[in-house]
């Protein structure tokens, strides 16, 4: 466990030793703010909820999470430090989890820094705070799911740009396959059960549960598997690279 934390610490320090962390935090906060107030019409809704805030997360994360995770493994490959890291007396799993946790913690920090909007909505009205907490948890899982996919794509290549684009495409698929404007078009073309199955495997349908204030065990299991499988794939890819 200690070695996981050592990897996590180094990786986290890596974000803050470069401008990446600060640029990301500023842009994330600006974007969530802009989407909530300008496009989501937070004020005009006249509702004491943070729906206008959370509804944009799957879209904002779509670009920002791959940007945070794209260097996880591709940078190790580019610098050649992968050889150093993997000849240390730690298992590959510790490295994968350590790195993943570092990025996830960083994204969690970004999410925590949106707390002023929570204070705002509590100051202006009387919102259901359990819904807000559930939504934050959903958003946290969503970031983890995208990040895990990015960890996998960054193990594919030493090129961060390719890693970023691949990750955006895969995450976009996970969003669109459950997004009503897309499912409505597909619905008449395919058997109903297929459409429902695909839609059920979308991050949209599952994050919706949290945004409605429910912490459904199925949604939790869904996110844990969407996090677990790409991390497993990351280990397969890295082992394959060395064979």
């Amino acid at each position: 466990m200690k070695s996981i934390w050592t990897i996590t610490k180094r990786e986290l320090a890596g974000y803050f030793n470069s401008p990446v962390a600060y640029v990301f935090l500023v842009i994330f906060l600006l974007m969530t703010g802009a989407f909530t107030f300008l496009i989501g019409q937070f004020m005009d809704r006249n509702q004491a909820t943070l729906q206008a805030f959370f509804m944009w997360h799957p879209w904002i994360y779509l670009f920002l999470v791959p940007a945070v995770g794209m260097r996880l493994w591709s940078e190790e490959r580019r610098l050649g430090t992968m050889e150093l890291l993997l000849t240390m007396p730690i298992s590959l799993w510790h490295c994968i989890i350590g790195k993943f946790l570092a990025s996830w913690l960083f994204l969690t920090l970004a999410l925590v820094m949106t707390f002023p909007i929570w204070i705002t909505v509590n100051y202006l009205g009387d919102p259901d705070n359990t819904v807000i907490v559930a939504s934050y948890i959903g958003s946290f899982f969503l970031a983890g799911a995208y990040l895990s996919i990015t960890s996998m794509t960054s193990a594919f290549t030493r090129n961060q740009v390719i890693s970023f684009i691949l990750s955006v495409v895969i995450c976009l698929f996970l969003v669109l396959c459950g997004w009503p404007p897309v499912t409505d078009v597909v619905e008449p073309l395919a058997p109903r059960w297929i459409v429902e199955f695909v839609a059920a495997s979308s991050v949209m349908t599952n994050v919706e549960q949290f945004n409605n204030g429910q912490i459904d065990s199925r949604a939790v299991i869904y996110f844990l598997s969407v996090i677990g499988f790409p991390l497993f794939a990351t280990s397969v890819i890295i082992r394959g690279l060395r064979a």
Partner: protein
Amino acid sequence: MIQVENLTKAFGPKVAVDDVSFSVQRGEILGFLGPNGAGKSTTMRMITGYIPPTAGVVKVGGNDVTEKPIEAKRLMGYLPESAPLYTDMTVEGFLGFCAEVRGIRDADKSKAIDRAIDMCFLKSVRHQSVDTLSKGYRHRTGFAQAIIHDPDILVMDEPTDGLDPNQKQEVRSLIRRMGQSKAIIFSTHILEEVEAACTRAIIIDQGKVVANGTPNELKAKSELANSYTVSVSGTEAALVRDKLGSVIQSSKVTIVNDKPPTVVARVFPKSADGEGELGRAIFDIASQNNWKVSEIKKEEGRMDDIFRNITLPDTQAQ
């Protein structure tokens, strides 16, 4: 400490390392020689557990690297080729990270960092970021990382590559000093390095071990070994060749240099000339003919000679 048995690695149809076996004991410094692409790095990567072998076994301190990787890796320090480092860290931060990953923490950690920094002369760049370091300092930081846990076994891929002559000298003496208590393998294509630092050398070519012995044993295999180089004046090249060629103990005479009035000739012995009979015979001929001998030298054989003879035919064939 290190046992390599029938190690083979194939990348698709290309066999990079082909049935290589050797072992290294404590107190030995093994030089790993070979032309570029001979399979040196691949062998080292298999020893350190970075890539799995296609066939064969590597045992480090009795631990099979494939079956007990963590135990085996704990005993080793490894400097990969071109010394990769995390460029966003300071030298001290990087060494601290390597120590922590190896389970060295708190007070032991700062002691280990101090020791490695001292041994590798990194004091002046201790707090500097790695990406601002010159190549020599980067290399030494990589070296420091490999010895941070004072390992029993050191594996280094071209540890002096890209260093200036003074730094090469420093690294070599560091290797020699540490070799007294550790088992060390290092690869190089600088032959003088092998003579300067190794107790034993292996020459590998196209994935196969083609020579294995102490530097002196290898040198003795050279064509030049035990030949005499003679510089004489007051005569002519043709005459020198005739007269020296008539010595019973000699097999062949070549004229190395013919710049009147001096002639430099090389006399090769028929068999290993242990007693120096050939040398005495050369002196006799010279005095009989009133040649002025300005120099006579018995050759030990040269590393580059044996290296070329063993590996050149293949390189040319490509």
